[in-house]
């Protein structure tokens, strides 16, 4: 039986999840705040759309991204199938509705009178958005952390797009599945332990920050 490089597997899990979270947040945070604050034609539709996408099954995301990145698919020229960057794409698509939607919630929770005060003091729309996000920062941080937690726990989508290739696209979750299938429970439990530690750190951080907020 080949040796499982635990360090590589954990490092890749963290890399893919962190990168997906960072990329998703860069777009999702301002978008979520914008949708929560601005009423324009169709904004209700977009907000409902984001909340509906919460229910998007991860296998569906995996299947769609896989089909697009396949060499016979529209994005095949990128050569991103069976690669970490392809996995980052799949994870980003997966957690994007979650991060955007939770940011929308957090910003909506900020009292009307806060936006009113900001606007009466002369803020432009952009300044309003930045300040309200600052006021909602604890909730927004929670949104980002939930996104990360979701990303690092994902199995199906990263397996389909990454291929679970030993030494290059294997992550903690897919390694657990594979080792279990092979009957190697020792390694599976060890990896599960590591994943649990990461998960607990993340949710402990969320609670700590929420308490302060």
């Amino acid at each position, binding site marked *: 039986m080949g040796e499982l490089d635990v360090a590589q597997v954990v490092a890749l899990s963290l890399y893919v999840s962190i*990168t997906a979270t960072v990329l998703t947040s860069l777009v999702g945070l301002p978008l979520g705040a914008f949708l929560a604050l601005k009423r324009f034609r169709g904004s209700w539709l977009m907000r409902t759309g984001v909340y509906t996408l919460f229910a998007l099954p991860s296998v569906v995301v995996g299947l769609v991204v896989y089909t697009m990145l396949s060499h016979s698919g529209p994005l095949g020229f990128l050569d991103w199938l069976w690669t970490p960057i392809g996995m980052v794409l799949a994870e980003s698509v997966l957690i994007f509705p979650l991060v955007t939607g939770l940011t929308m919630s957090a910003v909506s929770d900020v009292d009307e009178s806060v936006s009113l005060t900001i606007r009466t003091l002369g803020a432009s729309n952009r300044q309003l958005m930045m300040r309200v996000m600052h006021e909602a920062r604890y909730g927004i941080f929670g949104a980002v952390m939930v996104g990360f937690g979701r990303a690092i726990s994902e199995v199906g989508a990263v397996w389909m797009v990454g291929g679970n290739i030993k030494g290059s696209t294997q992550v903690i979750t897919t390694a657990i599945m594979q080792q279990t299938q092979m009957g190697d429970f020792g390694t599976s439990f060890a990896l599960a332990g590591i994943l649990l530690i990461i998960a607990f750190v993340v949710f402990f951080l969320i609670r700590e920050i929420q308490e302060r907020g």
Partner: protein
Amino acid sequence: MNKTKWLVLVVVVVAVVLVAAGLAISGAFSPAESRLILATTTSTQNSGLLDFILPDFKSKYGVKVDVVAVGSGLALENAKRGDADVVLSHAPSLEASFMDQGYGIFKWKVMYNQFAIVGPSSDPAGVGSAWNVTVAFKKIADNSSTFLSRSDNSGTYTKEMQIWGLAGLNAGQFGSWYKEVGKGMEDTLMMTEELGGYTLTDEGTYFTLINTLSIVELFRNDAVLFNQYSVIPVNPAKNLNVNVKYAVLFAEWIVSPETQELIASYAANGHQLFFPNAEP
């Protein structure tokens, strides 16, 4: 507000660095040739054979072989879509139509192992006394003994269906003793153990798990149970991005006498798993 601008800038820089790193490790900046994708089956991968022999290819040709392990059917499908450069599978009928449709450059034999019927040592259906595998299967059906079928697109399942066909039986009409589990070989063996039933397995997987199982081999050595592995480099005419050069080199390497010896030397729990039979 300046603090926020700073934060956004830092995050953007971090994002760019992360993505660049990702592209680098994904081979975006290396020549397309330096990566060879081998599509094969989960049982082949899980036997550990590839972990054992592939380093030799890397040291000879400097190219890392990335193994994507799925069922035989999907492995060939992947190759059709140009998502694999070379295939190592053991599903002769699927491979034949693959070649007929022009997806492979050539097909060479590599090695074989056998399928066997495993079950409880008490052998209630009397499989051990059958004189050929078709009869063995008939006995299981007549006795309504629990039988687990992988019912996926694997080589093992294809073989199982072939035998039911030879026995003149229609698996679609079996009673509840016939269980379609839709799982990989290891899982199926473990379930067979738990339910005290019979199943068809490749010996490679069975020997790997032998120390954890109490079910035993009851029937083997019928010519029908021959499990032939073949290597097929994918035809670039259908998909331009295929790494042809190294795919062909891989095929040549795996049938070379040195590698064939290496394959023969691979053993799990004291049992040789694969028997090289490349044609010279």
